[in-house]
């Protein structure tokens, strides 16, 4: 019962975030905040251009505008690839770069402290 209550609190907090996001999207604030930039934006823009060209020429076409947009937006993402492991390594490297100052700094701080290790016996096992 206690856990259910806690889950309800977490879900409420998540719903609050989602509600704010939906509210902002309906006011058009998010659209203004997210201009078409980078690869993703240009791909979407290209998709829209292709569909509008078909519409303006007036020629009958079996290509659905949403399909064109969709294909451009998610091109290359649908199939799994072993080369995609680069993305995993990339994420690990970024996290490693963020973590490394926090992991290394305390060691330097300890070394700089005068007599930090003088009174302590050396470790029994050092690998």
């Amino acid at each position: 019962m206690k856990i259910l209550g806690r889950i309800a609190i977490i879900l409420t907090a998540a719903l609050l975030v989602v509600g704010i996001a939906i509210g902002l999207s309906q006011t058009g604030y998010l659209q203004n905040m997210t201009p078409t930039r980078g690869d993703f934006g240009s791909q979407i823009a290209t998709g829209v251009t292709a569909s509008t060209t078909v519409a303006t020429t007036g020629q009958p076409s079996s290509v659905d505008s949403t399909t064109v947009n969709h294909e451009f937006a998610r091109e290359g993402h649908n199939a799994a690839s072993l080369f995609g492991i680069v993305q995993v390594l990339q994420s690990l490297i970024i996290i490693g770069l963020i973590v490394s100052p926090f992991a290394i700094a305390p060691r330097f701080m300890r070394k700089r402290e005068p007599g930090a290790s003088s009174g302590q016996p050396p470790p029994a096992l050092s690998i």
Partner: protein
Amino acid sequence: MQEKKQQLSPTKVSPTKVNLIVDSVIFIAFLIVTAPHFTGMAIHEWPGLAFGAGIMTHLLLHWHWLVATTQRLFSQAPRQARINYALNLLLFIDITLVIFTGVMISESALPALGMSFAAGGSWRMIHTTTANLSLGLIGLHVALYWQWIVNAVRNYIVKPIGSWLHLPQTMPQYSAKLGLAAKQLQKES
């Protein structure tokens, strides 16, 4: 009741061990989920939804810290705890947005359940932006709890493996032998 407790206590798993296992699973899931080129879109979406359950479990496991820090946030919480709290709050908002926008632009998971939403360009952009942001925030989250991670890994992974391989018994012997050999070499030279 006390007898029952005494009987149960030897089989009780350490909370640190549980946290380490859950957090490791979440971290690996995060790495997999943030690589859609590696997994493909379908596998990207399903664990993405399950990731929400992982975060929920993580929050439930750290509920006492969450409540205690919230209660003393504006009164007597130390600076470090406030920074952690702010970062964790930001991470919660970010992950919620990643999952929500992922649901909004879902192409295989939700249609398989018979649901679909109108995917707008803004949702896609927010999904990408918040996912990129989450990488940095999770990096900071890991960095802030680095010492705990090191200690937990040492106690529950390195030490058990070491004892399993009988390293504590054999290693000092080897190191002593190596030390003697080095001294002999120095004398000879």
